[in-house]
């Protein structure tokens, strides 16, 4: 008999949190690398090293995940990126 506190269910909830969304910044040929690093530092509070690493991911891999969490929060981050002129999208985190 299934109870409300089924341990299997609890475990699945932990493995699949209800916040599987990401803010993704995409490469564009216009924005300066130094500008992208600055935005990542300013807005996300990344260290210079992390900001540079994310920027290089964008540059070399075409995109980088800069945040993960609730959908509404990811939309706010994307809008903030748009405010700086970066090309940002929101997507469900790949399972």
């Amino acid at each position, binding site marked *: 008999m299934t109870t409300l506190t089924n341990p299997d269910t609890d475990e699945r909830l932990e493995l699949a949190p209800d916040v599987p969304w990401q803010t993704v910044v995409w490469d564009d040929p216009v924005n300066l690398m130094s500008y992208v690093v600055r935005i990542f530092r300013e807005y996300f509070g990344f260290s210079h090293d992390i900001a540079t690493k994310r920027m290089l991911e964008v540059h070399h891999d075409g995109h980088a995940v800069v945040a993960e969490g609730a959908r509404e929060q990811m939309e706010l981050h994307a809008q903030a990126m*748009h405010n700086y002129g970066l090309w940002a999208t929101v997507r469900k985190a790949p399972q």
Partner: protein
Amino acid sequence: MTHVIFTLTRVEAAHLADLVGQFQALVENSEGDPAVDRLTPDVYPDDAEASREFRSVTRDDLLGRRAHDAATVAADLARIETASVNEALSPVDVSIADLEPWLRTLSAIRLVLASRLGIADGAEHDEDDPAYGLYEWLGYRLEGLIQVAENEI
């Protein structure tokens, strides 16, 4: 806020003021312009309906911010005293009380120019096009401002 002195030649300052003025007109009357659409990109590339919904909520705010930033830059540039044409190559200091609107505005103008030049979509662009020189020049000046800002962090 980062207060900086930005040194340009007078002819550069005049060009910049002109570009910023054109940019202000563009964002205030921007319906259906692909260059302006780049300033409010699709947030869900695979879901046109969700993207439209997001844009309907954010577009006016984003373009309002662009207009506000550009007005700040225009006001900073307007404080430069006029000089005769003989002074075109002489340096002039622009006093910038808040650098952020400058960085965002110069970046946004470059996005618009890139869209006009076909740079944004990776299409072939003519490097002899005088507008390309303008785009490169803006990038050079923006890079300089970013370096100033980096030293302030």
